[in-house]
């Protein structure tokens, strides 16, 4: 029994603020309870070296892992407003300020362009640390613009999903982002640009029920929670214990909703391969074939 209780699980700080963190700091794995140094964790793709669990990481961590060096951030000038003047126990603007302070992020998704194994790609990656990775107008708009950018530049598009679902403080606007992102993806599909949906722990609610399930390819990290209704809601509904492994990546693969599961350490190589297979010249040929 420790003296201190861990209040928040997972890594909460954005990578860009964490680079200074001394490599000697310890990370305590919530699965196997083993302690490893931050350096060990980072060099092991943020997977616990002892039990291989994929620790939740942020958009910038993925960008660092995937891009060949440099990448460019887009659309971070688009920020949340408070259209409904929403107030529960806190006001929405207060929640936004707190989230920005805690994470140094501007919202729950970050769009970047760069190259993976010399192949250009547009990536929109979600941050669970920002209000549970919830989808509001900003998430919808940044995805929408990322899709426009992918169409204009004829570049493959990927979304890294990591979300608790809708941003309740934007109520109906939040709900409509499901429609917004889906109609935009229908345009991307029409333009013949490949869309990879990469689902990470956790991907639930309105995000799963829109862009996360609409990939030309859907793939996930191992053991990620992927659901429409979260396990707690399902359990309350059916009043029974849930089967082992329910709503995990392996379960979704088995039931036919994922193309494959990829370990984080293989992700860059796998994407490099896919980008070659879906190369623009190939895409063009496909679109003129009868």
């Amino acid at each position: 029994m420790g003296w201190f209780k861990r209040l928040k699980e997972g890594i909460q700080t954005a990578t860009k603020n964490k680079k200074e963190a001394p490599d000697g700091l310890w990370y305590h794995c919530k699965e196997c309870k083993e302690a490893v140094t931050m350096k060990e964790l980072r060099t092991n793709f943020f997977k616990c070296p002892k039990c291989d669990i994929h620790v939740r990481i942020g958009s910038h961590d993925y960008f660092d892992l995937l891009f060949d060096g440099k990448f460019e951030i887009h659309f971070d000038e688009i920020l949340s407003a408070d259209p409904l003047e929403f107030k529960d126990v806190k006001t929405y603007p207060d929640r936004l300020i707190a989230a920005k302070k805690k994470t140094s992020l501007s919202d729950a998704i970050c769009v970047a362009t760069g190259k993976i194994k010399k192949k250009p790609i547009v990536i929109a990656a979600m941050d669970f640390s920002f209000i549970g990775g919830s989808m509001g107008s900003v998430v919808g708009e940044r995805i929408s613009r990322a899709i426009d950018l992918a169409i204009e530049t004829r570049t493959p598009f990927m979304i890294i999903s990591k979300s608790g679902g809708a941003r309740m403080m934007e109520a109906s606007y939040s709900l409509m982002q499901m429609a917004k992102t889906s109609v935009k993806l229908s345009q991307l599909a029409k333009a013949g640009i490949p869309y990879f949906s990469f689902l990470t722990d956790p991907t639930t609610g309105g995000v799963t029920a829109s862009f996360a399930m609409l990939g030309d390819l859907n793939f996930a990290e191992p053991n990620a929670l992927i659901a429409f209704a979260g396990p707690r809601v399902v359990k309350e509904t059916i009043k029974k214990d849930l089967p082992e492994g329910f709503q995990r990546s392996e379960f979704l693969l088995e039931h036919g909703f994922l193309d494959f599961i990829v370990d984080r350490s293989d992700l860059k190589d796998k994407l490099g391969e896919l980008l070659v297979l879906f190369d623009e010249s190939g895409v063009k040929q496909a679109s003129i074939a009868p």
Partner: protein
Amino acid sequence: MVFLEFEKPLEVLYEKLEKIKQVGADGEIDVTDMVVNLEKRIAKRQKEIFTNLTPWQRVQLSRHPDRPYTLFYINHICKKFTELHGDRKFKDDKAMVGGIGSIDGQTVVIIGQQKGTDTKMRQFRNFGMANPEGYRKALRLMKLAERFGFPVITLIDTPGAFPGIEAEERGQAEAIARNLFEMAQLKVPILSYVIGEGASGGAIGIGLGDRVFMLENTWYSVISPENCSTILWRNWDHKIDAADALKLTANDMFKTGIVDGIVKEPMGGAHTKPEEMCKMLKRHIKKQLNELMEIPTEQLIEQRIDKYANIGVYEQLETKEL
């Protein structure tokens, strides 16, 4: 008649009216004047109650046990309606109904969630909570409509897509996502109405219309007030606050521009005069269909995509300060 809590003053008056009518029916005394007077009082009181409904009261009305449901509307609006069953993949979902029929000579495909009218039927209809096969049936019927150029009408009335084990196994999320994706490019007009409850993904899964309208006493949002209260306030007691905060009424949704208009209900709610409600809805549908069917297909799809691509409120910094 079932009276909601805020309608209790009316219940007393209605009881009186019944008694007086009974006396009249028994003979001797002429009660005509008394009946007329009392009916006037009822109408006046009803107007008072119904002109200032709170969002939570509207939510309650949207769930009124006597409220007309999808098949009631379909049977009163359509002629020669044939219900079409099954998703051709797994089974027939009883919580989602649909079929083909005629509205004054125009063949249409109508789809909607269906609630049950008594305990047994409520279970049979799974309380209007569709499983993935329901959404897939809806899509199959929309594709049928597309092939033959029939407009699609969807009637939304659900407390949510069903959150069960099998629903998750069969891909509830994928089924809803697929509908959104396919509806975006559907080559025929889609006209959607929230006729009762419009809860979250379960509602929008058939709700991506060229035009979307709400009946006066309905709600449409990302979550029910009860569940919103549980998540944000951490208990069930703030459903009234949540109903206010979510801006989920037809009025609020029209103000934000997310829905295109409001369909009036008879005074006292759709359930007080269901046949009249059907007539009002039919008139509305016919007018909208006439307009939508004039729009060339390419333009229709373009407008639909623009409509949804433009929903969202955000700030945009002039220079990159981050």
